[in-house]
């Protein structure tokens, strides 16, 4: 029996705009419209928009909201109102449950944006950890639609809707009036380009989708999004990291703030991991011979398998790229081989991100 796939509130609008749909962790989402290469180019050079309504919005509310967030996330959320930060949520052993971005709306109210595939798990975890504390954990995901508007020209176009949009600083959030209703705008993204993400009611974001189509934005799918995020060195929760990996192995040690006052889940373990170093580390690779590597391809060094790719794709900018966990002593620039359908193809280790823009 075919399982029922969930549709976002923008489903009809996406189909009308020419989307080809796929099953993404139980959601029917656009994989592409015109084509991944054209959509990638639009985001790198102009502006693209993505329906990311499958992502989750969880609120932490109450007198202990701040302390609670500090205790379940690795980064330091001692932030002024309107500011956000990226962090990992760890299990008791230090494995990565998910990565999140949390924003301080008021000292007693935080908005936590979580990944769709881990949304339920995150929520259950938060609920469990919130027991006996003066904080409410509210999963408001079903009330929100969300559009990611990304690219060097994205803010230029959006100025027509909100003339102050460029004043919103990177990793900040603001509540605005959009088509007569309140919405959240955050200056964040998953593409390596400047841009914003806008969360609002389903009707409102549907309206925004139409507005953007008519004002310079190209509708883009998950295919382009995956290429853009890998080029920009953003990890995919569930693929590039999961509960078997800790932030240091995931090359994200910077999101673990051991020096913050509060205790947080697995803080002690993280301190030990940091002190002892890791055996394996997520490392980037670029193929140096023709071929396209894919997720799951084995990585060889001197004839011996040292790991496998957790993400990999063709990249319009770098031909064929990927990343995977390999021994931490593998140095940047070292040659390896990646096995594609039984054929070993030359590649080299590189520092991530592959692509860096001044965002």
């Amino acid at each position: 029996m075919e399982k029922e796939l969930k549709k976002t509130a923008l489903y009809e609008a996406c189909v009308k705009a020419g989307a080809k749909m796929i099953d993404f962790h139980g959601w029917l989402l656009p994989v592409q419209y015109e084509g991944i290469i054209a959509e990638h180019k639009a985001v790198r050079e102009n502006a693209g928009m993505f329906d990311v309504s499958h992502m989750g919005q969880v609120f932490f509310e109450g007198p202990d909201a701040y302390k609670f967030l500090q205790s379940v996330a690795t980064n330091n959320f001692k932030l002024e109102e309107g500011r956000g930060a990226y962090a990992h949520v760890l299990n008791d052993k230090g494995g990565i449950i998910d990565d999140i971005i949390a924003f301080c709306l008021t000292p007693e109210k935080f908005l936590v944006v979580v990944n769709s595939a881990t949304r339920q798990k995150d929520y259950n975890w938060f609920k469990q950890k919130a027991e006996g504390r003066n904080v409410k954990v509210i999963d408001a995901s079903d009330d929100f639609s969300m559009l990611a508007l990304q690219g060097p020209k994205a803010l230029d176009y959006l100025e027509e809707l909100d003339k102050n949009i460029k004043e919103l600083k990177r990793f900040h959030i603001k509540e605005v009036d959009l088509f007569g209703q309140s919405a959240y705008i955050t200056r964040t993204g998953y593409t390596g380009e400047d841009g914003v993400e806008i969360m609002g009611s389903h009707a409102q974001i549907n309206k925004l989708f139409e507005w953007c189509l008519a004002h310079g934005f190209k509708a883009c799918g998950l295919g382009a999004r995956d290429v853009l995020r890998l080029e920009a060195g953003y990890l995919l929760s569930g693929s590039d990291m999961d509960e078997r990996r800790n932030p240091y192995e995931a090359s994200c040690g910077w999101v673990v703030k051991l020096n913050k006052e509060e205790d947080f889940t697995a803080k002690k373990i993280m301190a030990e991991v940091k002190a002892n170093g890791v055996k394996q580390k997520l490392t980037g690779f670029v193929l140096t011979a023709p071929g396209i590597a894919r997720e799951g391809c084995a990585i060889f060094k001197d004839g011996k398998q040292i790991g496998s790719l957790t993400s990999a794709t063709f990249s319009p900018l770098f031909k064929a790229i990927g990343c995977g966990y390999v021994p931490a002593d593998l140095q940047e620039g070292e040659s390896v081989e990646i096995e594609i359908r039984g054929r070993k193809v030359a590649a080299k280790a590189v520092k991530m991100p592959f692509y860096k823009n001044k965002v």
Partner: protein
Amino acid sequence: MYEQENCKFAKTHEWAFNENGVAVVGISDHAQHEISDIVFVELPKKGAQVKAGQQCCVIESVKSASDIFSPVSGEIVEVNEALSSDAALVNREPHAGGWIFKVKMSDAKELDNLLTFEDYKKTL
């Protein structure tokens, strides 16, 4: 160059065009459209023996790899080297410059097992 009407089609979307006992092989316009954004073609080896229906080549798009099956049996006598530097030729000219390989057929009657363009269209 290899007009659709003059080609025979496999259900797996490859076409074959008979050039005096040598079958020129490519993929249909429908297939190139479905695969979209072709970025790499892993060509078969010249001199290799292939059987009809045998996987012998892989076409990669940005997101996925698609197996290509030889529609006829015989020896691979030529591969389209132009695809090494410009794989998107398969998207732009699926029935011309985007041909993939040529098979010296061991049994040209195998072409009769393939679909005419009219019949192929009905399968889509």
